[in-house]
Every structure is written in C-alpha cells, then in structure tokens.
C-alpha cells in the first residue's frame, strides 16, 4: 500500500515505554458522552505522545468521531478530562483549542466551496493582523505584508501536496480526494502541534490514499503529531506508531499495530460485527 520507508520506525516496546514515561501531548481520561441514554463514548481514555502518529480504530458506530468531537470540544463531554500540552482544555471553546495548537478535520471533508483553494488555505493562518476590523483600515501596510507572507507559505504547502495548480479555482470544483487533501493542508497551515484526522482515506482513490499517507509521514518526520481515525487497516498499519481500539464507546485494546493485528478481542469485535 505505502512504500517501505513508511513502515513504523521503532519497535513496539520502545513505543509503549515512551508513552508511559514521557508526558503525552494529548491525554484524555474517563470521557463519557451519551445521546438520549445511549452511551456513544463510555469511560474512554486515549494518550497521544508527542511526535507520534497515533491510530484510533473501531467498528462503525464505535464512537470514534464522537471522541474527536469531545477532544476538540465540538461536543461537551458529560464527564471526563482532556489535557493538551500540559493544560486542561475542557473549559475552552473549540476555536480556542485550535489556537492552542490542536486542529481537527472532519469525516466528510468540509471545504468552503465558494472560496478559492488559496482562500481556504489562508483561512488557516493564525494571529492575522487583518482579522481585526480596525487594523484592516489603519494598518493597511502590515496587513498586506502579512497576507503576502501567508500566501507564500500556503503556496509552498499546496505545492508539496500537488494542489498548487488549482490554487485559484473554487474549492467546490475539487474531487472528493482532493478535498480531503486540502482539508489536511489547511490544517497544516495553522502550524499546529497536533492534527486530528477523521478518516483521511475514506472515499479516496488508492493513488491519492498513498499520496495522503506519504504527506502525513513526511510531516511527521518534521515533528508533527497526528491522531488518525481510519477504517483502512493498511493505512493504520503502515502509518501508526501505536493504535487505540474503541468498541461500543469503550477502550478495547491499545498497542503497536502488530499487537493489535493479532489481538483476538479486536478481531472478534471487527468480525463479530
């Protein structure tokens, strides 16, 4: 699926030690969320070490997307705590969490159709002077300069993911796979510490899946951490340093991809469905 250089670099044991000894970039414990009496996420925990690609898998309806929504505060948890980069973040608004450096993408890619690909990217830039109404009028030069720098940065990310030729097209004209790619590139534009990807390969043709994986790996080499929900097992196995398994809202297992692949409980949860 993905070329060999992508295979997980370290052995499983080292990984486990790292995640228990070094403080996690993101840690969530005892998270609960129910919808009308049905527990979508039930006392779940997850730890994401700095610098890793962490996987999150589970059968359909296991509560993975809901867990993402709880971590990013798009949904308020009924219970539990989330610590990101050493700070509790449950009391923060979703946009504040993004400002702290944790950016999420959506299971069904959300691009701003009637904005250009470039405008989609520029929206990702943080702390823009020109996002302040008065400064648009009174700091015209500074705003223009910043905009030029942001455009350069956006262009270099677009070039690296191969969307540069489409920069001036409407984002609505992109294919499904390209939209996923744009969404990830836009998240990169925020210069985050951690990106949460919800099924980045779903509904994407195999060639593009490969490309997306390569980008994730190369960004990870540059130090970016990822938490990835994915159904495509090849993707998970080739990308992730460690994997969490969720079933019916509960933690089922945690380990290296190799361990998870041979875990009988996990196989049962998937096959029993």
């Amino acid at each position: 699926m993905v070329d060999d250089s992508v295979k997980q670099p370290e052995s499983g044991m080292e990984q486990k030690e790292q995640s228990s000894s070094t403080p996690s970039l993101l840690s969530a414990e005892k998270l609960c969320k129910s919808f009308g009496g049905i527990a979508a996420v039930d006392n779940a925990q997850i730890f994401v070490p700095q610098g890793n690609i962490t996987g999150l898998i589970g059968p359909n309806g296991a509560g993975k997307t809901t867990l993402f929504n709880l971590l990013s505060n798009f949904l308020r948890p009924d219970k539990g705590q989330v610590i990101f980069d050493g700070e509790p973040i449950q009391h923060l608004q979703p946009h504040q969490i993004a400002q702290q450096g944790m950016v999420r993408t959506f299971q069904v890619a959300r691009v701003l159709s009637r904005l250009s690909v470039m405008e989609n990217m520029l929206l990702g830039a943080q702390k823009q002077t020109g996002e302040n109404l008065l400064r648009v009028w009174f700091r015209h030069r500074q705003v223009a300069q910043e905009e030029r720098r942001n455009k350069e940065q956006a262009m270099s990310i677009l070039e690296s993911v191969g969307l540069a030729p489409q920069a001036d097209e409407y984002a609505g004209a992109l294919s499904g796979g390209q939209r996923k790619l744009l969404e990830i590139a836009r998240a990169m534009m925020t210069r985050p510490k951690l990106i949460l990807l919800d099924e980045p390969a779903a509904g994407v043709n195999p060639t593009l899946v490969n490309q997306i994986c390569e980008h994730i790996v190369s960004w990870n080499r540059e130090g970016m951490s990822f938490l990835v929900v994915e159904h495509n097992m090849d993707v998970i196995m080739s990308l992730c340093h460690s994997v969490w398994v969720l079933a019916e809202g509960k933690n089922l297992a945690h380990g290296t991809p190799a361990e998870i692949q041979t875990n009988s409980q996990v196989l049962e949860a998937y096959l029993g469905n």
Partner: protein
Amino acid sequence: MADYAGYLVYLTISTGLFGLFALGLNLQWGFTGLINFGHVAFMTVGAYATVLLSSQGVPIIIAAMAGAVLAALLGLLIGTSTLRLREDYLAIVTIGVSEFLRLVVQNEEWLTQGSFGVQSFPLPLVQFSPNPFGKGVMIAILTLIAALAGWRLWRGIFQQGKPIDLLVWGVAATTLGLLLYLSGAVALLNYTYKAGLMLLVLIALALVYGGLESLVRSPWGRVLKAIREDEQVPLALGKDVFWYKLQAFMLGGAIAGIAGAFYAWQLTTVYPTNFEPLISFYAWTIVLLGGAGNNAGTLLGAVIFWAYDSLTRFVLPQFVPLDDARLGAFRIMIIGLILMVLMVWRPQGILGRKEELTLGR
C-alpha cells in the same frame, strides 16, 4: 422642468440612502449569511435617535453618530441573545424586534410624539449658502463620485465577460446615472437644502462603500465568508465565529442607523408608519437584485429599485385604472414578480457570479 429636476434629486437621495441601508444588510446576509428580516429596526433607531437628540441641541453630526452607535448596540443586544442559536432564531427575533420597536415609537408619545410624528427638527446644511467657489467644489466632488460609480459599474460588467443582457443594463444604468448627475449638478448650482443633502448622502455612501470593500477583501472578510459557507470550518481553524458574527451584525446595523438619519432628513417629518416591515423587504429586494455578497451589485440594485419605483409611480397610473392604495399594492406585486423572474434568469443577481451556484457543497 424645475419639478423634474427636483424629483431627480429626490431620487438620488432615495437611491443613496437605500443603497447605504442595503449595504448593511449585504454585510450581514450577503457576506456572513445572517438572516435579518427586521433590518428596518436599525433604521428606526438611527432615525429617531438622530432627530430626538438634535432637537435637544446636540450637534447634528454627533446626533447622527450616536444614532449609529445605538443601532450597533441594538445589534449587540439581538446578537448576544440569538447568534449562538440556530440561524432561524435570528430571522424570527429580528422580525419581532423591528415590529416591537415600531410599536414603542408609536406608543411612547412622551418621547416620540407617537403617530403625530416628529414635526420639526434640525436638518444638516440647511442654513448653508455656498459662494460660487463652494459650489464649484461641491460639483467637483459630485463629479468624482459619479465617475467612480461609472468606472466601478463597467468594470463589474467587463469582469462578467460582457454578456449582452448586462450590457443593456449597463447602458440603462449609465444613462440614468448621467441624468441624475446632471440634475444633481444643476441643483448644486441653484443650491437648495435637498441638493446639499444629496451630496452628503453620496459622500457617506462612497465612504461606507470604500470602507466595506477593503473589509470584505481582507482576512476579516474572509472569515465572514467562511462563516457563511460553513461555520464549523472557521471554528475548527481557531476563529471566534460568534464574535465575527456579532461584529458583522453590529456594523451592518450601524450602517443602517446612518441610513436612518438620512431617511429622517429626507422626510423632514418622521412618523412610525415610515418604518413598516416593508422597508426591510426593500433592502432584501435590493440585495437580491444586485447579487448577494457583492457591494457594487447592491448599489446597482438600489438604482434599479428606485428607477422601477419612479417608472411605475408615473407610468402605471396612465394604464392601470386603480386607486392609489391598490396601485401601491400592485407595484409591490410586480416587483415580487420581477424578483421571481430574476431568480430564474440570473439567480445569482445581476452582478453575482454564476459559477458559484453550480458548485457542490
């Protein structure tokens, strides 16, 4: 002849102040996607605040600015209570608030004189009598604004690839614009209060238009458009969506407040009946005609709206044997019909971009 010229000046003032009014709605709805069916509420606040404060001896310019600030505060009040909720709440609350305000104005006679109306209040530039040099400067300003408007109109049409139907509209608008410009220049030569008001409203319109254009092309405007498209996206990218919505709503309200001051100055007596819900509908018509999310289009929409209003006011009675009240209703019916035809023929509005409608979500 003098009558015609006077009417054309009245037409310019109406177009200008409703252009302002609709620019406020275009910021809220066209750019940010906020559904405001009670836009007239901001105009009511702006008009009454200006009139009542200046009657108490507050300098007229400060009274008008206070009107704009109060309109913005009304936006803050409505916004903080509804902008976090689903979008239809805002639509309902704005209708409610605008009717509520009209009833307050109608019944709180101690403050507003109720349905007797505020009969006499200070008007701007009323004692002003310019010397020939002053008149020259004023005509120069008028010329500058007219030239800018013409240039912007034709640039908009050329950007659409010069389709034949737009060329026809463009020629019609230019002819009308020239007519208005000439009558305006003549009115400034034989200076009257209305001529001064016309120049004031055009200056205010040009300033607001320029300010808005730089805003909507800035990163600030980009966030608004992102909210209009899908507010989850800016939220996930670290933008305080609620705060941006509030800013757009308040700024749009303040602009409508300024339009309210001009409305009062044009009417010279204000009655609660001047602030019927129909006025909000006018603003929607103007924005839809010109193309939502397009400031130049909105101004073109205002021109077309008032040109239509005048044409039907003078031409219809010749052909349709109806009394005044029925004729009024009939004219509104026709504009509804025109809007429907427009939605079929150019759903994006006259200066809107067609490609945008064909895009999937």
